[in-house]
Structures are given as structure tokens and as C-alpha cells.
């Protein structure tokens, strides 16, 4: 049996995601479990992470989602999507420092991330770190996501 070049080996992930999305308003716990299974096969898959978090929220268990994502981020800290979802959950739970670290990692990994700069700006502003917040907002507003502002911000965030 010759292994044909696996195109599109990874494409079936789309079909699986659609199934999970369909399960959300029936039994969100099953949807969450299936999203988690999918994430084991496709680490950091953006839509699967969203579905996992959304399903857990629907099941009234945002805290459980946070715990899961923390474990994922520890195991594979270079996946921007994990850090982004984790950042949002931490911010919501009042862990500003943790949220800041996660979102700073997002923009480090993906400087063109369309949403993370603004969320990061909000967190920094709330923490009173106005200069860095202004740089984050500027990156969001002007698309200077790889430029001086974001570089300064990243170094400031350590």
C-alpha cells in the first residue's frame, strides 16, 4: 500500500468543524468534547479553539475552558490561537497579568493578528500602562504591526 501524497490529509478538519458547530445548540458538552478531540489532532486550530471555548461557555463552564487552554499553552506555547483564546478568558476572569502575557505572545507570534492588538491595548490601558497601550492601539489603527511601535511594545512587555 503506497501512501499517496496526503492531499488533502488535513482538509477533512473543515468537515469535522462544521459537525461540531452544528452540535453546539443541541448538546454543547458533546460539542466541546469533540472540539477537544479535534484539537488533539490539530493543535491550536483556530476554529476548533473558538468552538471549544464557545461550547464550554454555553455549558456554563468558561472556567473549564480556561483550565484546558492553560494546559495547551503550557504544552505548546508557540501557538498564537491558543494564546489568544486564553488571553480573552483570563481577562474575563480578572487575571489581567496572565491575559497580558498571553496577548503579548500572540502579537509576537502573529504581528498581523487582526484583533489582538486592540485587546492588548485595552488590557494595558486598564493596567495603567498607557504608553504601551497607545503603541498597541497605534499598531491596531495604523497596521504598524511589525513596525517600531509594536517592537517597542514587545520589548516593553518583555
Amino acid at each position, binding site marked *: 500500500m503506497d501512501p499517496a501524497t496526503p492531499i488533502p*490529509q*488535513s482538509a477533512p478538519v*473543515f468537515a469535522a468543524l462544521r459537525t461540531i458547530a452544528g452540535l*453546539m445548540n443541541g448538546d454543547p458538552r458533546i460539542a466541546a468534547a469533540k472540539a477537544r478531540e479535534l484539537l488533539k*489532532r490539530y493543535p491550536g486550530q483556530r476554529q476548533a479553539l473558538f468552538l471549544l471555548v*464557545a461550547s464550554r461557555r454555553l455549558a456554563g463552564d468558561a472556567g473549564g475552558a480556561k483550565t484546558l487552554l492553560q494546559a495547551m499553552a503550557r504544552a505548546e506555547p508557540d501557538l498564537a490561537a491558543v494564546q489568544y483564546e486564553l488571553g480573552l478568558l483570563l481577562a474575563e476572569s480578572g487575571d489581567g497579568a496572565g491575559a497580558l502575557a498571553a496577548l503579548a505572545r500572540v502579537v509576537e507570534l502573529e504581528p498581523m493578528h*487582526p484583533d489582538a492588538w486592540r485587546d492588548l491595548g*485595552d488590557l494595558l490601558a486598564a493596567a495603567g500602562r498607557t504608553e504601551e*497601550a497607545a503603541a498597541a492601539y497605534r499598531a491596531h*489603527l495604523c497596521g504598524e504591526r511589525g513596525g517600531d511601535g509594536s517592537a517597542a511594545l514587545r520589548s516593553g512587555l518583555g
Partner: protein
Amino acid sequence: MEEKGATVSADPHAAALSRVAVALAGDRESAGREARRILESAPAHPGALAALAAAHRLAGDTQAAVEEFGRIAGAHPGSAAAQFEFGLAARAAGRHETAAEAFARTVALDPAHRQAWRRLGDGLAALGRTADAARAYQAHFRLGAREWKSLEAGIAAGPGPARAALDAVLAVHPADVTIALMYAEIELRLGRHAEAERRLAEILSRAPGFAAARYTLALALHKQTKVADALRELDRLLDADPGNAACLNLRALSLVHLGDYARAIATYERLLAADPETAAVWVGYGHALKTVGRIEDAVAAYRKATALQPDLGEAWWQLADLKTFRFAQPDIRKMRKALSAPALADDSRAQLHFALGKALEDSGDFAAAFAEYAEGNAVRRRSAGYDAAANAGRVRRSTALFTEEFFSARRGAGCLAPDPIFIVGLTRSGSTLAEQILASHPLIEGTAELPAVNAIAARLEEEHGPYPELLARLDRGEFAKLGEEYLALTRVHRTLGRPFFIDKMPGNFLHLGLLHLILPNAKIVDARRHPLACGFANFKQHFTHGQTWSYDLRDIGSYYRDYVETMAHFDAVLPGRVHRVIYEALVEDPEREARRLLEYCGLPFDEACLRFHENRRPVLTASAEQVRRPIFRDSLEQWRRFDPWLGPLRDALGRIVDAYPAAPPQPD
């Protein structure tokens, strides 16, 4: 992408917005004023609204933000951006119900506003309205799925559009390893194995637990003949998932490539113990058994495969390809029945025709046999996509480049190791016999048809542009490195520790210039057989991979001409560099030819070379069973039975037939 970014390009207010963005770091009040000024001339400008929101956040006044955005939203009830910003401000102030209402208005105005759907879902979930929240989340999800639709369309449209679609996502999300994996898979499909490997290594550095990526890396390594590396990745995967069928199968194949048949057979047995019902695995198992000479076991394995899946052409063909196997009448009936199914896959159909052709040839019905061979070839040719003119062009470019002067200018370059003995030519030309004779010598190790030279040439072309012309631009020192690279790639196949080894990849004749430059002391043996005998033998052969030229009599003739032209050219520019073994002469007087061959290799004669059929080394090619018997003369004249149908081959060969075994004085 999650949301349209609030970027300022192609926006008449871009300059003003840039000023606002800069002012945010200093005079926030002035930033707020400037944002409001933009909103006066461009009410509900999304960037200006976001800037104003930022100014409020920096001022730390959430209540003022709610009030101002409330006013703006009220003044511009048709602006989705205004409603969205109001929602965000309300949420920041803890007014979740107000926020949810604002987000609901946003999506009513702009149903494609992904972030609003998500915020609405969050808000509704927090308020306990889970059914509504689920619908909002699903809307957010469906909008994200648009990204995949373009990806799926791209993948379906072919590698170019697929790469463009994936590039667009990776530009924004370079850390998305699923998308990166898809890209690597496409590189693999395009044969850009080194690039696929590089991308997969990067993916795994981010996500070491990404099993699908690690499997694909193993596949990329396997395809580059980096077999030991492939096995290391597969063993890592199998440690975590011992029963993974895909990994076990690729592991068995890698071990076959490595020449480690004992472990390959053990791996197949492990796979079959878990899943004895997959016919294709039985075929792979049978192939490994055949290679080590366990013919009865191989036949049993192939028979098992035909029993499990009677229309699996590969199983029938593998039985036929034993050459010594004879089909019975019930087999012929089963093959014909399988061929009568209109939905039969082309690959199986082709192999069934080839197998049936062999069965009919053995029974003496040559007209019917030829008809089956012709059908099988026609099916294969449709997918083989051989371009005879392109190959002839490549040969002419090669002969134009590799002149006497070209080689003189590079004399002394390359890796000086004398280890490799390349046997080149066409398939079915007696090269396995020449190999078996040499491999029976105590100083020479037979390996297999090693794809290392092809892999190096492909990598060079990937990195430096058109091949072989790129060789003119390489420094002398590069040739030595390439020779070392070849030795490194092939080392894994040398298990006996003998000083010389054989690489029997026949198509390496297309790389003679490269071979000479990188390994000037390697031996090159040209195995040549009568063009009609060789041509017909290829015509009735099904190859698992490659040999795309072998599925049409005219293509075969043209390819043989290219080969003769190439070899004649190198005889002229590098006299004596290549030693030619004429198959008919070898069969007629094996000792004389073996002595000449060994003399060319600079090695003393050894009697063992004449007892090559006693050599138990694994043999992978179509001649595996033939070389396990004393000199095989049956095939010399077989083609004559089919002579009435070989006109197109004869025409394409032209004067080559009459000039054989010499080359015609000038290329036709």
C-alpha cells in the same frame, strides 16, 4: 481572519487617523478631538470610532465612553460600526444587557460582522440565553468558514490557487500550524520535498505533538530517501500510538527502502495482526516476501489480497510480475470479471490488463495477450503524462552543456571516493543480472534502485533553477559536497560494509554529467539490450512508479533513442568512462562478460560472480525471480512472437535497430 482591521490604507482620512494614532501616545485629549473631527466629516468612520474608544480607554473613563458612544449610536442608527463600539463600551462598563442589545443591532445591520456575532454570543451566554448564544456563535463560525471555502476551492483548483489561498491566511496567521500543514502537503504533492520538510520542521518546532505533521514529515523524508530520519519520526509516532496503521504501513515501506526486509516483514505482520482485512497491506507484505525470495509465502499473500478484493489489480499484477508464476483458467475468469466493472479504478484496470496479458501470453494466445497489454498501456499512459519531445529536449540540452571543454574545465573536481558503481540504461535491459553478478563479488554490495541522484538533482533545481544548466554556475567545491551528500544519502543502504556498492537506478543515465562531476571515480555501467526486445519487455511491464515513457510503443522507441544518443555523447566526450554490457553477450558468455566488467571496475575476478543465482540478497526489480535461476535465456527472443504488432516501436527506433549494439553513426 477575524475582522476587518481598522487600517487606514486607501482611506481619505488616513493621514488624519495616523495623527490620532500618534497623538494617543502623548496628548490624548487632542487625539480624542481629532478623532471627533474625522467623525464630523465621516460619521461612524470605523477607524475614527476605534481611535476615540482608545482615547477613552487611555483616559480610564468608561462611563464617559458609554455616554459618548451611546450618543453616536443614537445619531447613526444605521451604522454597524457605531453600534459595535457602543456595545464594546457598554461591556467594558459592565452593562452586559445594553452591550448585547448593541451587538444585536450591529449584526442586524451587518450580518458579516464576525466580532459582533462573537461578542453577542458571549453576552447572551452570560445572560443565560444559551439557545440565542449558540446561534450567534454559529453565525460567527459560519463567517469564519468562508476562509475555508476559499481554501477548499483553492485546493480543488490545483496547487497554484491553493498556495495563493494558504499564503493569504498565513500572512495574517503564520503560527496556524493546520494551514501550514496544508501548505507543506501541497509542496509534497508538487515534489518539492525539501521545502515540505523545511516547513514541517518549523510546524513541529511550534507544535511537537502535531502527529499529522510528524507523519507528513516522515513521508517527506521517505520521499527524499532519508529513510533513517523517516523511521525515527515514525517510531516516535508509534511510541504514542502503537497501532497506527498509516504509520506502520509507511514504516514497513521505509524499511523496504532501507533494505531491512526482516523488520519490514515484521512490521507488516504487526499491521496485519491488527487489521487482516486490508488487501493492499497483503500486497505490500507479499512484495517484501518476494524480495527476500519467499516466493510461496508471497504468492499466498497476493492470493489473500485477491480473495479479499478481487478487483485489486495490483495483487493480480504482482502475481504476474513474479514472471515464474502461471495463472490458471479460474484466475483468467476472475480477472475478466473484475475488468467488466465499469467503475473499476484506472490503476486497478491497468494492472489487471497487464496481468491478464501475461496469463494469455503464457497460454500461447499472443494476439489476445498483446491486446491486453495495449489496453493496460493505454490506461496508464492517460495518467503517466509522458512528453517525448520534452525528454528529447532535455537530452539535447544536456549534450549541449556537457562538452569536452566543460569537463576539462572542471577536471579534478568532485568527491574522489570510488565506492559507487552506477548501473544505468533502460529498465528490462538485463541490468538486474549485471547487478547480481557484481553483487556476488565479495568486495561489492548490491543495494537497489536508489533515488538519491534524482533527489539531489531535484533539490538543486529547486534551489538554483533549470537543470542541468545550473551545474555550470556551481563552484568546483560544490561538486565535492554533492558527492559527499550522495554518499551520505546512500550510506544507510550499505549494510555489509563492503568497499563498493551498486546503485542500479536505470534513469540515472539522464544524470551522467552530474554523476561524473560529483563522483569522478565512480564506475558507470551501461546495461544495454536489443531495442525491440527491451522495448517490448517494457511495454508489457507495469511499473508502480515512474517509467512514464514505457506505456506507448512510440514513446518507448523515442526514449530508447534519447538513451542511445546520451550514451553515445558521453562515449565521445569522456571516452572509456562508461562500460557497456550487452545483454545478449552476457547471456551467451557470462564468464567473459563478468571478467570484462570486473576488469573495468578494477577488481579481480571471483568465481562467486558466476554463481550469482545462489546469492540470497534481496532483489526488488521485476527480474527478481529470474536472477535467482541460472542464466535465463527464455526472454531473448520472446519479442519476436509479438513482432507483427511492434511496427510503431520499430519506426520510432529508426536506424537504431540495425546499428545495434552500436549506436548509429549520427543521431536520427
